[in-house]
């Protein structure tokens, strides 16, 4: 073998020679599992009867893997695995901290719920187009983005999830979908190109792409490098991906066109990847620059919240209304990022996790409402309360949750954020969060009053039943939101640990460089 001729001391600088405990394989398991299953599902895509039987247990397995990873991270702190033994800056490292593990687990739960809902929502033709393979490849991309510790690798996972999402959004190839997909594709490609440019500048400045390495070098390089420009390119790229105010027109233009499960998964997962990347890069890697831009991010956050809430109020199509509610949520998370303090960041993480669950549930709920009522438009939709009291209860719970009212999961992070706003001295931000919450409540109430309470002109309503493929994921997600709302302490403690790890990433750095970071 070639390696035997090189002295061991030289080898130890570039490679790790320690053996890897089996538990550390959980770090890489979620994306590998998704890609492998995606490949198997493509190979068996002609066997329509097999697809669901393979996909649903595999998604359940993914949730178990994700939960195991979170447990391991809570037990041991951040875990690192270097690909192919090569140490950074030569090789790619996957480093999982509580933030990444939490996002990853929530994404897994959302994917499982979406997969079950797809059994009813995605018909045979669309499954033949490859719904489940695309779902696995997209979730693989999402979890890879949450778990990687290398910024160029993060870009690669962005591309993986983006390409799979193109496949999902045009499932069925309807005219309207192609129109929505074009807007979605072009604006997202511009966003990822900006991200790539930023990564290029960053590599020129730092000479490394490893996140821990960057975090260690950023404080000393601040004076001699164009850090503010670099940060602005990163912020713009991630804001486009997250659908923040001036660069979010692609979201309401495209999210109502795909199948409802696809729209729900996009709303739950994809915008949150943008928020996650913004938190990871700006809060953990470039905190000084994030601090300098906090006013800018704060103003964008406020505008995003207000335009999202006003947009939701103006829409008659329930799916479009939800698209704007996604945007409002993004604004709330951005507000938290702009404060920068630990309570605010932990509230932002909490809100992001809540939003992944609740936005997916809202889309699924609207899907059921649309099936029962025969329309997504509030002009035509009526009498749903008489049709299905169960759906109405779920709808009410989810509307409460998205508006940030107790006792659901949206309440706690919002309350924490408003408190953080006043502590931070940004009382106007706190006011904007409250006003946007009020506007969202009004929009949700209007939808409920028209679609559910209003009786149809004919005066008679046929009762309708929810299918098992609708009821199981919807009730599970709603109960999860209620559970988090009633007993928020465990998640709150986790979010606080995660936020502390982002603001003070010594444990993260130690996980990648046990002997201390190499000096440049």
């Amino acid at each position, binding site marked *: *073998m070639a390696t035997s001729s090189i002295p061991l001391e030289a080898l130890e600088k570039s490679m*790790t020679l320690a*053996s*890897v405990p*089996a538990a550390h*394989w959980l770090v*890489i398991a979620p994306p*590998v599992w998704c*890609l*492998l299953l*995606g*490949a*198997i599902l*493509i*190979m068996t*895509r002609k066997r329509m009867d097999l697809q669901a039987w393979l996909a649903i247990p595999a998604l359940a397995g993914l949730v178990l893997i994700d939960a195991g990873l979170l447990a391991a991270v809570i037990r041991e702190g951040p875990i690192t*695995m*270097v*690909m*192919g*033994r090569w140490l950074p800056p030569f090789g790619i490292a996957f480093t999982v901290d509580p933030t990444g593990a939490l996002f990853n687990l929530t994404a897994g739960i959302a994917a499982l719920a979406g997969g079950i809902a797809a059994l009813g929502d995605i018909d045979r033709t669309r499954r033949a187009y490859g719904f489940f*393979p695309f779902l696995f490849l997209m979730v693989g991309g999402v979890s890879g983005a949450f778990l990687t510790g290398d910024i160029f690798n993060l870009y690669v996972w962005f591309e993986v999830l983006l390409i799979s999402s193109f496949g999902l959004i045009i499932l069925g190839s309807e005219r309207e979908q192609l129109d929505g997909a074009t807007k979605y594709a072009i604006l997202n490609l511009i966003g990822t190109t900006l991200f790539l440019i930023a990564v290029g500048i960053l590599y020129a400045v730092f000479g490394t792409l490893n996140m821990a390495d960057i975090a260690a070098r950023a404080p000393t390089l601040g004076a001699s490098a164009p850090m503010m420009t670099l940060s602005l390119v990163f912020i713009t790229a991630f804001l486009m991906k997250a659908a923040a105010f001036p660069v979010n027109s692609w979201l309401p233009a495209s999210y109502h066109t795909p199948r409802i499960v696809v729209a729900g998964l996009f709303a739950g997962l994809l915008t949150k990847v943008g928020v996650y990347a913004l938190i990871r890069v700006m809060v953990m890697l470039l905190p000084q620059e994030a601090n300098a831009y906090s006013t800018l991010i704060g103003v964008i956050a406020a505008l995003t919240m207000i335009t999202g809430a006003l947009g939701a109020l103006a829409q008659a199509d329930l799916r479009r209304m939800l698209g704007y509610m996604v945007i409002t949520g993004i604004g709330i998370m951005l507000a938290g990022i702009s404060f920068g303090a630990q309570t605010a960041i932990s509230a932002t993480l909490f809100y992001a996790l809540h939003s992944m669950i609740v936005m997916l549930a809202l889309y699924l709920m609207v899907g059921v409402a649309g099936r029962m009522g025969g329309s997504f438009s509030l002009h035509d939709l009526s009498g749903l309360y008489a049709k299905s009291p169960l759906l109405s209860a779920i709808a009410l719970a989810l509307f409460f949750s998205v508006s940030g009212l107790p006792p659901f999961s949206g309440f706690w992070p919002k309350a924490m954020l408003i408190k953080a706003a006043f502590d931070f001295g940004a009382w106007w931000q706190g006011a904007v969060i409250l006003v946007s919450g009020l506007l969202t409540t009004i929009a949700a109430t209007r939808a409920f009053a028209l679609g559910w309470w209003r009786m149809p002109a004919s005066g008679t309503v046929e009762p309708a039943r929810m299918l098992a493929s609708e009821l199981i994921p919807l009730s599970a997600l709603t109960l999860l939101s209620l559970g988090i709302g009633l007993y928020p302490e465990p998640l709150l403690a986790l979010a606080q640990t995660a936020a502390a790890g982002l603001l003070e990433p010594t444990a993260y750095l130690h996980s990648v460089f046990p002997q201390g970071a190499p000096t440049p």
Partner: protein
Amino acid sequence: MDTSGTGRSARRGMDTLIFRTMAPYLTALMVLFSVFVLLRGHNEPGGGFIGGLIAASAFAILGIASGVSAVRRALWFDPITIAAAGLAASALAGIVSLFADVPFMTALWVFPNIFGTEVALSTPMLFDIGVYLVVTGAITAIALALEEREDD
């Protein structure tokens, strides 16, 4: 106008007797060459990506000469299935490391003696074969879709 019975105006330029006779041999030669390029790629220029492109060009040539359905019959598997098998092979190449207690994607080698010759087999080779299949399958699928006409 059309005496051959198969061609349309767009196709006529390619539809010569010489091309149709030569294309299967050319395709066979190119596929063989693509495998050669794939296998020499570990230490010398070449590898899975470029090998896959050569193989995909070979199938594209056959498609132009003999029609898309002939290529689909000759390939036996659907091109997308070939690409998926490649993705699975590449993922499995990384998972082999699990059983050797080393990190994901670590290069592992064995040197079995087959018929008196030492053959170097490794996980990077399996990964490269996976890349080869992904590129061959994906590009062939695109090429065949572009060559396909209503009458094929």
